[in-house]
């Protein structure tokens, strides 16, 4: 099928109508409301499930939930997490249900890629990716967050929530639509 292309009229070939139309469009946009978000004054709304910076959490009695199993260290793709476990003669855990607590826990925020694998693999629900997206520091050493800083930024997280979530999922599967 041959596409019929109309010959441009003389008026159109002068490009003047096209230029005038262009002038109208740009003038209209000149006076429209701007879509720029002025950053430090206006911030955007961080959505649910946003993968920000990873922080350690405490439970409702103020104990650290991390038991230094080092699973997050091994799963971390850029190896941003470094944990020094207490060893056999290190300090004991600070809560009754745990056997050990990390001696030192460092996350290098410059290597972290915010993938969320550490949060996914943690059996104790001790590390979460929070909504913090703008991390700044004045030196590389300053950007390696140690345990104190991580705990302080993490906040509180009550109990184990994954069982509640698995319960919800199981219930959802019990009412699977459509009979055999």
């Amino acid at each position, binding site marked *: 099928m041959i596409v019929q292309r109309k010959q441009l009229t003389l008026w159109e070939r002068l490009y003047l109508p096209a*230029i005038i139309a*262009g*002038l109208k*469009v*740009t003038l209209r*946009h*000149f006076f*429209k409301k*701007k*879509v*720029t978000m*002025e950053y430090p004054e206006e911030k955007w709304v961080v959505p649910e499930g946003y993968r920000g910076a990873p922080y350690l959490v405490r439970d409702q009695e103020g104990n650290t939930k991390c038991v230094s199993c080092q699973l997050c260290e091994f799963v971390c793709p850029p190896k941003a997490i470094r944990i020094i476990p207490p060893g056999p003669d290190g300090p004991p855990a600070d809560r009754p249900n745990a056997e050990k607590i990390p001696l030192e826990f460092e996350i290098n925020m410059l290597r972290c890629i915010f993938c969320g694998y550490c949060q996914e693999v943690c059996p104790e629900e001790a590390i979460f990716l929070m909504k913090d997206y703008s991390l700044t520091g004045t030196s590389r050493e300053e950007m390696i967050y140690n345990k104190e800083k991580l705990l302080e930024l993490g906040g509180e997280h009550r109990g184990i929530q994954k069982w509640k979530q698995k319960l919800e999922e199981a219930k959802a599967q019990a009412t699977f639509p459509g009979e055999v």
Partner: protein
Amino acid sequence: MDWNFILFSLIKIVCVIGAVLTMFAYSVLAERKISAFIQDRVGPNRVALPLIGSVPVIGPFLTRIGFWQPIADGLKALLKEDFTPSYVRKAYFWLAPAIALIPAFLTVAVIPFGSNLGHQRMVIADLNVGILYTFGIVSLGVYGIVLAGYAANSKYPFLGGIRSSAQMISYEIAMGMSVIPLFLLVGNLNLGQVIEYQARHGWLILYAPLSFFIFLVSAFAETNRLPFDLPECETELVAGYNTEYSSMKFALFFMGEYANMVAGSAMMVTLFFGGWTLPFAGMDQPAATVLMGLVHIGIFVGKVLVLMVVFIWVRWMLPRFRYDQLMDLGWRRFIPLALANILVTAFVLWWRSGS
């Protein structure tokens, strides 16, 4: 030795160069803000000076319109490293920005930017062949770009330089021929006389709109502005002839381009829009008081600013011409059109004077 004349000329030269440089700095800012507004975004609005920025109402307002941004740009240009690559031809590399910049400043020497202030005429050089001088100097502007492209010793700048020089010399012819009808009407090449004619008979754009159109488009082509900016666009030739140039020399090229725009706008205001006159309120007479003289200068600057806004507006509105379309327009359409314009004007003048 007329020391008085020399002294006042020096003062005028310093003032005009200062004014052109200030207009350059603020036209860069204006371009960024206007282009941002056309593209639904805000331009630079963060630079604030330490003390003045906190004055209650004016300070934040000036910061929001980016008034101090040219200071930041100037500081950046000064403090950035200004290197010379090892593979360039050193002499031409160093000369090219200067040769690109100087003709722009020379062109404004003949333009009357006011009537008079006290007893001083507000024009640096009241030449009787004003417009010929202008076109001679504009032709020199090509050398800067050719040298820049040649000196950089590398593919993209070379192509950019060649294209730009071909484009500029083509549109110079159309530009020159398009203003001949105006001088047929006025009868005198002196730019002060042109303004006086316009004060008596109305602005020349009403008599020769086609001349204005050809001159406007040729001015875009001469200053390498869109829609004719193939020599320096980013998509075709990384940055064209100014690829290899860094801070200060690049700033000089940039300054040359905007100073050329200012000179071109000033030329258009003088030739077509009546220079420093306005048709009402007795502002078409040379000033009797200092206040009126200042008002005339203000009118001139205002008109130049309007034309600069038109330059910037058209840049962000039209797509770029392809190179063969550009040359086609310059040689095969504008030159016959300008010639026809001259013939028709001459015929009409002869008819009116004969009968």
